[in-house]
Structures are given as structure tokens and as C-alpha cells.
């Protein structure tokens, strides 16, 4: 019966076989070596290597598992033949060890273009210097690592995508690293501690930052298209904020004319509000279509101003999502409400704004005025959804009453008040 059927699989071109093998867990890919004589070494020329905990058989003893994984990868690399374009290692069983250094040395000689390293939670892995000699690196992802670029490191000249999470790197070096990668298009930095960061990346398009940043400055990022920032606060940083004299809004958003999407979490708006003079920023964000801001404190007039400034300078804004985090008790102090009626220029029209989503609304005066402002200035609005904050129980009726009374510029606008009975 075997003679009758023809072997269709082995006749496929090598590129397809490689694709198929890459889509298998790496253990299964290696197992194809005993299928037939033609398949004996097909696995050995795979260029995309992904080692993860799927390769680890389940044993109770961590040491045994670690041993087996190390053995498997060492043997695999030894038997491998040809270039390696992608090397991805993410295993919670592996810790820093000389074996990993050796693998990286081996890989660095193989024209690697994509490198992903994520090791276990123990002692952080210290990247050997051979990582910095991967000249063709286009994508680098490191988790729980110590990076120490050698003094003669000139940068990754081909690097387009950089993702560092929980990486220990001297603060000067991180800025150097970023600016020495001229082609960098996407930068993600997570869980850095107390970092003062100035980003100089002329080709940067996507920026994701998360952590405790003392200072953030986008000095040369004209092509930036999407920004997502989550700023955590410590006492240190709060102090630093108070002493800061520069205008953060300009520092951060002053040089991004092509921005299309802006997402800010936690203390982002607070950060932007520091040093912000009450004038309209000279820059207009013609391409900004989506704004998402979380934990906006409507008690603080400065933060409200930041939000307004952003919105009013984005004529093509399509969707807005704001999540509040206001303290209702604090807001009973008479806020500066005249500003809404007097100082706010009314020549602003949000002609493209179609959807607005407001969550965690506490109903503080500024917030209600803000909603009123939005409704009055968005002639194309289709839907506004308002979800009151969980902590507001009695004020909901007042909120609703106010909402209903607001004038709407758009005849098609529908206001959805999302009320989940407690």
C-alpha cells in the first residue's frame, strides 16, 4: 500500500517545508528527522527557532527539567546547519547560566536578525557582550536582563523593534542605545525604575512606555504615530514633579505632528499638566484620531486643561475615551468654574468626533462641564456612553439630570447611561 501512494510532502519547496516546521513545536520539528531519509536533516536548516516551555516535558524536579532543556537546546544548536534568523528563548525553568552565554555566542555568529530572551524569575540574566555584536539584528526583545553595552558599541544599525522589559541598564546607556539605532521604528520600555528619558529616534513610529519615569522628553521623534504611556508614581517622582519648571506637555507632545493615536494611563495627564501654561499649544495634531486617557483627575483644573488642550488641537479627532478618577469629596471645594464660561474659546469644533466613552464618571463639577462642552462642540457625534463610577451611589440621579439638560450640537447623538444596579 505504501508503494501506491506518492510522497507529496517532501516534494514541496524547502521554503514551505521550513514554514511548516516553524509552525510545529520545536520538538516535533526535530522528530521529523526519523521520518525518512529525505527528512533526516530538513529540520536542521530551520532559520526560525523558538524554544519555549512546550519543549519541556513535565517532571516534578525543576533541576531535571532545566537539565533536559539545556541539553536539548545545546544538541539542537550543535546539529543545526545554516543561518539562524530568529532565536527565541522563553522559559521559566532556565536561569542565568554559562550554557545560555554559549548559545548566544553561537547565535551571534549566525547572522541572527531577531532575538527574544525571557528567562525565569530568579537571578536576572546578564547579556553577554556577543549580543552587541549581532550586526544584523532587527528585532530585540529582552525580559529580566542586565544589559551593559561595551564602550565601543556603536549601536544596532538595523534594529527596528526594541522591547525591553525589566531590564537593568545604566540610564545614560539606554538613551545612547536608542539614539544609536537609526532605523528604530518601535520602542517599548516597561518597568523601568526612576528613569529620566529623552528619546531621540528620527524614525520612531510606535512608542510604548510603562514604569516610573521621572522625566520624559521626546526630543527628536517627528514620525511618531502612536504613543502609549503608563506612568507610575513614587514619592521620589512626586517630589521631582513639584520641582520641575519646564513645560512637560511641550516636552513630550511638542514634536509629534504625525501622531494618530495617544493612550495615557495612571499619572500621564498629571505629568503633562505640570508646568503647563494656560495657552494653546502651537502644534496642531492633524492626524490625531484616537485619544484614550485613563485616571484623569477632574478635580485638578490643570489636568482638565491638558485634556482640553489635546482635544482642541485635534480637529480630526474621531474617538475619545476618558476614564476618570476623581475624588468626589475633595471636589466640593468651589472649583474655578468660571473658566468654562469665560476663558474657554468657543471657536473649536470637533467636526469628526463620532464616539465618546466616559467611564468612572464621578460627576464632579468639572467633569460635568467637560461633558457639556463635548456635547456642544461635536456636530457629528453619534454616541456618547457614560458609565458612572462604582463609588458614586447617590449622585447618579443628579448626573443624569444634568446630562439630559445639556444641549447637543449633533442631532444624531445618543447618550447611553450605563447603569448597573448595585
Amino acid at each position, binding site marked *: 500500500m*505504501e508503494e501506491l501512494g506518492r510522497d507529496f510532502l517532501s516534494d514541496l519547496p524547502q521554503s*514551505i517545508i521550513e514554514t511548516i516546521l516553524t509552525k510545529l513545536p520545536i520538538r*516535533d520539528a526535530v522528530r521529523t528527522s526519523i521520518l525518512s531519509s529525505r527528512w533526516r536533516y530538513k529540520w536542521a536548516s530551520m532559520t526560525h527557532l523558538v524554544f519555549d516551555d512546550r519543549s519541556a516535558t513535565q517532571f516534578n524536579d525543576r533541576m531535571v527539567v532545566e537539565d533536559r532543556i539545556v*541539553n536539548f537546546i545545546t544538541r539542537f544548536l550543535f546539529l543545526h546547519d545554516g543561518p539562524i534568523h530568529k532565536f527565541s528563548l522563553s522559559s521559566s525553568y532556565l536561569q542565568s547560566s554559562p550554557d545560555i552565554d554559549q548559545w548566544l555566542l553561537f547565535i551571534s555568529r549566525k547572522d541572527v536578525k531577531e532575538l527574544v530572551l525571557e528567562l525565569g524569575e530568579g537571578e536576572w540574566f546578564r547579556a553577554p557582550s556577543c549580543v552587541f555584536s549581532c550586526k544584523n539584528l532587527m528585532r530585540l526583545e529582552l525580559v529580566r536582563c542586565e544589559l551593559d553595552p561595551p564602550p565601543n558599541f556603536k549601536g544596532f544599525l538595523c534594529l527596528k523593534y526594541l522591547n525591553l522589559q525589566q531590564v537593568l541598564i545604566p540610564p545614560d546607556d539606554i538613551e545612547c542605545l536608542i539614539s544609536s539605532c537609526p532605523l528604530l521604528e518601535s520602542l517599548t520600555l516597561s518597568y523601568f525604575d526612576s528613569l529620566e528619558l529623552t528619546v531621540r529616534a528620527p524614525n520612531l513610529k510606535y512608542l510604548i512606555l510603562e514604569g516610573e519615569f521621572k522625566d520624559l522628553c521626546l526630543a527628536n521623534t517627528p514620525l511618531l504615530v502612536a504613543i502609549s504611556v503608563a506612568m507610575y508614581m513614587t514619592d521620589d517622582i512626586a517630589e521631582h514633579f513639584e520641582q520641575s519648571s519646564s513645560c512637560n506637555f511641550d516636552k513630550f507632545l511638542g514634536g509629534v505632528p504625525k501622531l494618530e493615536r495617544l493612550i495615557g494611563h495612571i499619572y500621564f495627564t498629571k505629568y503633562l499638566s505640570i508646568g503647563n501654561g494656560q495657552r494653546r499649544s502651537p502644534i496642531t495634531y492633524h492626524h490625531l484620531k484616537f485619544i484614550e486617557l485613563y485616571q484623569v483627575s477632574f478635580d485638578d483644573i490643570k489636568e482638565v486643561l491638558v485634556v482640553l488642550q489635546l482635544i482642541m488641537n485635534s480637529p480630526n479627532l474621531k474617538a475619545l475615551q476618558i476614564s476618570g478618577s476623581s475624588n468626589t469629596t475633595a471636589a466640593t471645594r468651589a472649583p474655578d468654574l468660571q473658566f468654562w464660561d469665560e476663558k474657554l474659546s468657543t471657536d473649536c469644533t470637533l467636526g469628526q468626533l463620532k464616539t465618546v466613552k466616559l467611564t468612572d464618571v464621578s460627576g464632579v463639577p468639572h467633569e460635568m462641564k467637560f461633558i457639556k462642552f463635548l456635547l456642544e462642540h461635536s456636530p457629528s457625534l453619534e454616541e456618547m456612553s457614560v458609565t458612572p463610577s462604582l463609588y458614586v451611589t447617590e449622585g447618579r440621579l443628579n448626573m443624569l439630570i444634568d446630562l439630559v439638560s445639556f444641549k447637543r450640537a449633533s442631532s444624531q447623538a445618543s447618550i447611553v447611561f450605563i447603569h448597573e444596579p448595585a
Partner: protein
Amino acid sequence: MIEADSEIIKPEILKAYVWLQTSDGSIQQVEQEVAMFCPFICREIQSGMGSSKNYPISLPSRVNPPMLSLILDYCRFHQVPGRSNKERKSFDEKFVRMDTKRLCELTSAADSLQLKPLVDLTSRALARVIEGKSPEEIREIFHLPDDLTEEEKLEPIKNTMDDPRIRLLNRLYARKRKELKERERLKNIEVEEDRGDERSVDDLLSFINGSNEDSKTNRVSKSKKKNRKRKDHHKAAPSNCTSTSNSTTASSDAVYTNNKESNELDSVRSSLTCHGNLLPNPCNGTKLHDIEDNTIPPAEDEFDDCDLDDDIDPALKEKIDREVEDFARRLNSDWPERMQQILSLGQERRTLQLTTNGNGSLRIFTSLDQRRK
């Protein structure tokens, strides 16, 4: 048909068509927007081909009419921009439900037309077919010839052909496979089966039989020793090795293909490794076992009667062979009445998981004992 409809509804909009010629020479007419989904066809159209029946676009040879129609179905669905991701995904899932032969052909055809999304989809489907299956299953599905020697299967690196132990191993496997085929062919004939049982009787009786205790314990202890001590003296080693292989081969005749453990393999391997650095993991037999685990799911590991005729220690081999024959004769003559009993038990024993180290054989001993009582 569609064209006629659209003509009725909107006569001013004419759908453009292109002509495609497949490997068998037949020419098909296809809506241009559908065909343009394939980069290959797109380029051909841009260079002026395919606009009329006389100048059809010649498709690559790997694209035959049934494959072309499948590909066009795919294109027709996906080139419509308004579809949601969910719709596309569910279409894709249904689309790749076909037998693997067609999947391979489709992958090849899509690749020649440079239709990368379809190549990705079919490759993923083929990977799913391969994933998690044993080599035998994969070979059966894709009609791959099983043309690797055992040594090649066990050792993915180039091995030295001169290594006598590798040759021995290879020969054992080859012989075993031959014997399996023999058994398969003659399955219906009772005599053959009896003979098969006899061998197992021999083996088991050799453990049961008290009069042969010396040699039995020697053997058992030898194999025990084998597994405990990884390194042995070279002098004593050969005899140990072959005798162990003998005993293991003899004993494991009782084990049929149901046994998926590689423990026997392990013990032979460890006996071989005791000779030093001839195999990749000299000191730790389990490591080789591991790489085997890593690269190969449990291989067949039955052994044959050692009727070795290569040039390794011929005198010693003869001695061992004679030993085996002696035992067999003696046991057969001493226990004729037991043969009936054990023949009937032979059926059940087949499914027992047996290991060939000392413990395993003792296990057989106790179970048989219990049955006797």
C-alpha cells in the same frame, strides 16, 4: 452568470475578466478583481498579459485546474473588503478541511502564485496534521518511505560505520524487523505461533528453572551488574555485553510490539556504553536515552535471537549460542507438561510490560509463580 446579473442591474459597469491558462493547456476566464488577489497574476496583468483569450496568462506548472478553482474560491472570498476578521477566520478553517494530499498540492500551487496568506494557512494546517503524531502515523499519512536504518534513527549525527557495536545494534534491529514480518505473514498458521511461544517458554523457563540457577543468577546478576556499573573493564566487557544482549534478546521475545517502553533499548545502550566513549554519552546511558526521547518517540525495541554472524568475537559468540541451545534443550526436556500451561498463558503474557533488567525478569517470575499456584 454574475456578469449577466450585473449587466441587468447596472449596465454601465462591466466586470473585467482575465484569461488564465493552466498546466494542462485549458484556458479559463476569471473576474479580474478575483484573480488580482494573486501577486503573480497581478504582475502578469500589469505587464499586459491575460486581457484576451489569445494571450492568456500562463500559470506555473504546479497549478492544475482543480487547484486553480480552489485558489480562486479563496481569492473570491477574501478580496471582498467588507468582511470581518471572524468571518475570514471561519472561512479559512472550513477551507482547509481536505485530505492531506490536496493540502500539499494546494500549498505548492499557492506558493507558485505567491499567494502568501494561503500558503501560510495551508502550512499551518499541515503542521497541525504533523503535530503530536508518531512517526509511523506521519509516514502513513504522507506516504513517506521508512528508509532509515535503525542507527540513523537513533543517532542524528554522522556515526562511524566502523563501530562494531553500532553494526551489532543495526543488525539486531534488522533481524527483528525481518522476523516481525515473518510472523505477520504466517500469523494464521498455528505452528508458527507455537514456535513463537516456545521461544518465550525457553526464556521464561530459564528463569523459573531452579536447576539452572547458577547460570540464571549469573545472567541476572550480570545484567544487574551491567545496569549498575556504567564502566567496565574492557576485557570482561565483551562477554558481558554479548551475553546480556543474548539474554535480553531471548527474554524479550516474549515482548511483542505492544511494548512501547524504551527500557530495553536503554539497557542495551547502557551495556554498549560501558565500553567507553564510542557513543555520544559514554558515562550516562540515560542521556542518550534522553536525546532519543528528544528526537525520537520510542522506537521498536524487540530483539532477535542472537545469531550473530559478523566478525566480532566469533568464538565467544559460539560459546554463548551453545549455552542458549543447551538451556533450551534442557528446559524443553524437563518441563514438557508445563508447556501446555505456559502456552496458554503466553497469550496474556504478551501484554505484560516487561523490562529486561533483573527486576523485570523477577517480575515475570513472580507472576508466573502466582499463576502456577
